[in-house]
């Protein structure tokens, strides 16, 4: 057991957790932030992507202890004053989601893309999202949503 101290979605949290607790497990089980999803056990699907100190990370690839002291943003932390982030708005407007399961990771990953590349081409968007699997949308509307968000961010 060890103490995990993080700033999650702008709030300081401190919890005891077993040393082998994954960040994804810590968020879901210890903080009840169930918006971060677990879709696989090989760090392939990307449903668990969150931001750690501003960069996207598959939260199943890191121990909570590894990121001790970091600032973590999850899908629950994107709204400001009840208003959705432009990426969330774009996904809604352009039907970039269906069942919603891959969506949190997809949105977090896409936001990081635009942080690093303000006007990505279709190919750059598709390449970036290679680590996020969606089974519902065929990706087309996700790509469109990322492009739309790029005009708003």
């Amino acid at each position, binding site marked *: 057991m060890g103490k995990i101290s993080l700033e999650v979605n702008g709030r300081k949290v401190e919890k005891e957790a*077993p040393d082998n607790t994954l960040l994804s497990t810590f968020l*879901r089980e210890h903080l*009840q*932030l*169930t*918006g*971060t*999803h*677990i*879709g*696989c*056990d*090989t760090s*392939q*699907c990307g*449903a668990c992507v969150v931001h750690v100190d501003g960069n996207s990370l598959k939260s199943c690839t890191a121990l909570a202890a590894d990121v001790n002291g970091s600032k973590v943003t*999850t*899908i*629950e932390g*994107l*709204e400001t004053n009840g208003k*959705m982030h432009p990426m*969330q708005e774009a*996904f*809604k*407007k352009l*039907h970039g*989601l*269906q*069942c*919603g*399961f*891959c*969506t*949190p990771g997809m*949105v977090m990953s896409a936001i990081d893309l635009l942080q690093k590349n303000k006007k990505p081409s*279709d*190919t750059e*968007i*598709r*390449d970036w*999202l*290679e680590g*996020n*699997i*969606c*089974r*519902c*949308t*065929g*990706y*087309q*509307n*996700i*790509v469109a949503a990322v492009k739309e968000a790029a005009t708003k961010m």
Partner: protein
Amino acid sequence: MASLVGSRVERKEDKRFLTGKGRYTADINLANQTYAIFVRSPHARASIKKINIDKALKSSGVVSILTGKEIADDKIGGLIAGWAIRSEDGTEMKCPGNPPLAKDNVNFVGDPVAVVIAESLAEAKEAAEKVEVDYKVLKAVTSTADAMNGDTIHEGIDKNLCFDWLLGDRQKVKEAFDKADKVISIDIINNRLIPNAMEPRACVADYNAASEEITLYTTSQNPHLSRLIMSAFGNVAPEHKLRVVAPDVGGGFGSKINVYNEDIVCSWAAKKINRAIKWVAERSESFLTDIHGRDHVTHAELAVTKDGKFLGFKNETIANLGAYARVFGTVTPTYLFGPCATGVYEIPAAYTNVKAVYTNTAPVDAYRGAGRPEATYTIERLVEKASMELGIDKTELRIKNFPTAFPFKQTLVHTVDSGDYVAGMEKAKQMADYKGFEARRKESEAKGKLRGIGVTSYFEACGIAPSAAVMSLGCGVGLWESAEVRFNPTGQVTVYTGSHSHGQSHQTTFAQIAADELGVPIENIDIVHGDTDKGTFGMGTYGSRSLAVGGIAIVNACKKIVEKGKRVTAKMLEANPEDVEFKDGEFVVSKSNKKKTIGEVAFACYLPGVRDEMKSPLPEGDEPGLKETSFYDPSNFSFPAGTHIAEVEIDPETGHVKLEKYTACDDFGRIINPMVVEGQVHGGLAQGIGQALYENAEYDETGQLMTGSYMDYTMPRADNFPEFNIGYTCTHATTNPLGVKGCGEAGAIAAPPTVMNAVIDALGGQEVTMPATAEKVWKACKNLKKSNAKAA
């Protein structure tokens, strides 16, 4: 009021999904819950000699360990096949028992033999490692083609044959073939797929000792059907003491139709230990134990005249059922397959013969399209081959054999009410710039690349399905759907549907329908589904039935509301009910300015009286309240259809296939929400293209799944696709009041033959099996080079 049907209404469900407030089964935690881990067979086929749980029981935190013996002692029933299929010789199909926990034999890797229940997940995992199962390993049967020659898997089921089914007339087909100028034949494999909904299966079972009620939260596409099966066959609890809730479900694609072992075991065990139990599949468990799809080996022949008229069709298929026959396992390769195998063509004589075999692999059941992708792949590959052998343009050959009038009495079963296949073909050709292909082929050739174009024209039978028809064919239940439309006294509306949305957008599209029918703003309408305690009953979502069956139930319930509203308005305004018209949410007495809004009428129905007067707004015979139910049983299937065209470019140096263009032109009848339909088409295409180019479930000869993770099973990613070019033609279905047909499966049905026809066209007609991986295509390119060199 503008009609919402036909509009791109943004989805009501999106905000919760986009802000992390979705509530999936794995997100549910109950007070004092325990955690389950299943001990699964590592062998494909073995008998269980002994299970020793002594060490595991002493492990920390263990609450209970249960095996096949306890579940048999408690007379808990097994998993079932939902359709009884008869063989050509009249005998009934042969199904083995499928206990929720195997007691004597295991039949595929992943077959569960015990459940370990502990205070924490980590403790359950640790204890599960200590369960000792002594197996006698037996020789596994894994090959679809050779299954009938393998060892007998299930006692008493000779040749591992579940049934040997025939649809059609062999004699007529023989006569047709005798008259043919040419016979085109093909041998194809429809590769096994793993559905891979992104949310792994999960369940949380709870027992309330006071009410003696079990509540099961589970990842299901059809909670009412699951409850019925678990109650009637599983003997878990009577239906009124079993509540099944399927909350937000992260995709299904058919894989969440079935009641699974874990649902039954956790429900039963929760009552036994009087505590809640949570189980969440790891992805590797999903790979092993979710139902798989497709897996056919087919020989098919088409008899043609020299000018390209189709005379006869025969289809000999071996379909792999996996280890056990499950809910839609036996109907998928029969009535969902055979009738569609003659495609969109007038073929005077046809038959389909299917031998369904057991193997030591995961059960195979309905996966997006279910039977219709296999059927379409068979006929469309054959037609494309015929066009090459006859030297007739692939689109002209198809048009030549399209039906000329509707209703179209299709060769084997269906009467297709509506369609215009020629219009679909012409529009698809225009969208794809079919004419310009040869120029593009030359451009590719100039770069040293091979370019191919492939076409598919398809129809599918969906809107599943008329109860009397399907029950006559062996279905264990009727496939109607119910809806309940409930006005609240203050005017908002709650619609309860027996359909289930796990991505399909019912919360929005069903509300659009109800809003138009009732003239109530969409924000005042809620769609409720997914809970057997809410809503009457329902058969769930699969077979593109939600709108074409469930949506019509909503329309019919709304119409009953309007009828009652007219009677009540007439009484309130002292008019004849026949003189009351309903439009845009208002009941108007014709030729007068007297009217009531539907909200006023609803209020009056719930508060039927006035101060100081003995006066009711309710006509004699009408009860208070405003709530109506409809059980809608369709009169026919619905028949979406269309033409898809794909263009690929192959690099002969690497064998890499690049999908350059994909055009889909579909006829789904009336479209409720174009945005949602586009999403359904895109998703279906991605799965169909995945089958053609990427995905394949493979077992080795001992029955180990070689593709059991995302490292080994190629899931299509964003960079695998071009932007799809999609469009529509529209003929309204004549068999339902909305004129709708269904759109969820079209992409998965049409894409595999479209892409493969393009690949094979690029390869000069050389056969390649799905998925057309770089290795296979590279080899074919080398053969092509050799044969070209010879020819030169």
